[in-house]
């Protein structure tokens, strides 16, 4: 593989990402000697650059607002998002979607529920879908990745074969297929479907960076000192392999929220809409999209802004943690 073209197949791209993991000895001291104080850790140097990056600050700012909103929205929402307060105005033929009025600045949805309250409270379920999908994908991917990266040999070969096949199915299509297995779709099945797609990505990422660690000096030294294999894996290899995984997680948060919306759009999402979620609101707005496009535009804007926030944060994290960018 030539250094000029680091990306070949999807799996190789993931491996390339893995290679940007903190290399605790060589690379850093070398790079540190160039323009940073000697001995500055990767994290510290990354942080000092992130603090000055407007892209990161914008992304982090959006994320912060989103998380705070998710926490306090039930308190500041003017109405109960599940109550059909304007239901008496809904006429299926003449007026399916009540418009803006006193106390309801954005109007209501087709069931007479306050749109503003649903958007505000929707941040909560959206955050839950994003976070839980990422955690689930991470947990599955980490288990497989540790298994493969720690044992190597035939365990590695077997796990990676399955992972590669999962990567050979277009990811969104895989999510659709998994969601279709659910006899009763719910928020949980949506999270599982969206998370499953990320399992092979995380697994390959972690395995790549752990394999790179296996033969590094500090692991060899630990082994020579008689440290147990378990301690080597969990105390020496794993912590040093996490940087690319953390970066990927922030990007996955964005993808999960968008994918969940696509599932709702295809009717594979959570059918229970008492607790609103942006992806669900967007997916279901298609019924009235030409007469009342605002029903789709508001939740879509929310999703775009939040996804952009996570992406900006993830991309600047990646750049900051990439040893190559320390030059």
């Amino acid at each position: 593989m030539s250094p000029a073209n680091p990306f070949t197949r999807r799996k190789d791209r993931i491996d390339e990402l893995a290679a940007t993991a903190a290399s605790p000895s060589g690379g850093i001291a070398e790079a540190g000697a160039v323009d940073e104080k000697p001995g500055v850790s990767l994290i510290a140097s990354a942080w000092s650059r992130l603090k000055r990056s407007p892209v990161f600050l914008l992304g982090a700012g959006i994320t912060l607002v989103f998380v705070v909103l998710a926490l306090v929205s039930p308190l500041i929402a003017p109405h109960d998002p599940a109550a059909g307060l304007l239901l008496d105005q809904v006429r299926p033929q003449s007026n399916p979607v009540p418009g803006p009025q006193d106390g309801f600045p954005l109007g209501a949805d087709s069931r007479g529920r306050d749109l503003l309250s649903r958007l505000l409270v929707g941040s909560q379920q959206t955050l839950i879908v994003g976070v839980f999908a990422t955690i689930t994908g991470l947990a599955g991917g980490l288990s497989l990745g540790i298994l493969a990266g720690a044992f190597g040999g035939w365990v590695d070969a077997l796990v990676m074969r399955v992972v590669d096949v999962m990567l050979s199915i277009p990811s969104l299509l895989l999510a659709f297929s998994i969601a279709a297995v659910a006899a009763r779709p719910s928020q949980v099945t949506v999270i599982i479907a969206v998370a499953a797609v990320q399992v092979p990505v995380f697994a390959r990422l972690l395995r790549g960076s752990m394999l790179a660690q296996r033969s590094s000096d500090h692991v060899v030294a630990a082994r020579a000192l008689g440290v147990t294999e378990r301690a080597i894996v969990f105390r020496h290899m794993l912590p040093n392999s996490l940087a690319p995984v953390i970066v990927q997680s922030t990007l996955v948060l964005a993808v999960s929220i968008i994918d969940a919306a696509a599932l709702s759009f295809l009717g594979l999402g959570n059918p229970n809409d008492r607790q609103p979620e942006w992806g669900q609101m967007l997916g279901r707005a298609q019924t009235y999209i030409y007469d009342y496009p605002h029903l789709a535009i508001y939740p879509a804007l929310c999703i775009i802004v939040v996804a952009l926030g996570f992406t900006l944060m993830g991309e600047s994290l990646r750049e900051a943690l990439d040893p190559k960018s320390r030059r």
Partner: protein
Amino acid sequence: MARFIIRRLLQMVGVVAVLSVLLFAWLRSLPGGTVSAILGERATPETRAALTEAFGLDQPIYVQYLKFVQRAATGDFGVSTGVLPGTDALQIFVDRLPATIELSVAALGLAVLLAVPLGYLSARRSGSPLDSGLVILSLVGVAVPVFFLAFLLKYQFAVEWNWLPVSGRQDSLGCTRITNFFVLDGLMTREFDCSASALKHLVLPSLALATIPFAVIFRITRASVLEVLGEDYVRTAESKGLTARVVRARHVMRNALLPVVTTIGLQTGALLAGAVLTEKVFAWGGIGDALARAFEVRDYAVLQVLILAAAGIYVFINLLVDISYAIIDPRVRTR
């Protein structure tokens, strides 16, 4: 070279084999099991018994799997229950393939034609307002749900302004069908109004479908050109007095395009998934449309064909990409 291709082919066989096991497991885990999944609500005890026997569901699991492979190999995937009830599932795939290829080629062509030159420009002027603007645009492109963008385009250009057709692939002009690639058919039969109509219908869906590939290809091109511009051989080429044009074409672009070629192959996967959403919005009548409908009505016979085909196409295209890559860059062959 031949050894390289054979090795890749063998790997592909392995992938397809594991894929068939996964698909088999998937079919078995569907709600209500395979029989209910395929027969749906119309299952009578007789048809159930017939299908149970035909599928060998009373036999050991490895026999069932072998039968599944046998049926798949002979193209027998059962009969559609919801998308086009009564039609052979494989036939639905074959009928709709040209529509999706036409759309995907248009979308990918659009993405590549815009992304590669813009990525190059962006890298040449890195740090300029143009560069920043394009990078932001590419980040937003990934953050917008595809189907929402499709709706937005359709709403603005087709419904509100009435510039372009709302849905479908062609106006009903009584066009002759030869290949079922409508643009091509019109050219072959010299019914140019047919081609024009098909092209008009292509604009909005391909634009929507092209956003994500555009964003990804743009960023890879930009990163790749930036990296190559810093290489020693580019400096050497410049300092020995080669003209800017030769350096650009022979040294920069030739090397920078390698990862771009691979990315383009990878994006076919995103295209297939994106086609499901875009085709649904524009009632395109292709594979994506059928998949969306099959998920809605849980038409498992159609789903298994289309999912297997989508994965197969994706694996195959990436095989082609690998081979083309090995032709462009001899260093890859030894890997």
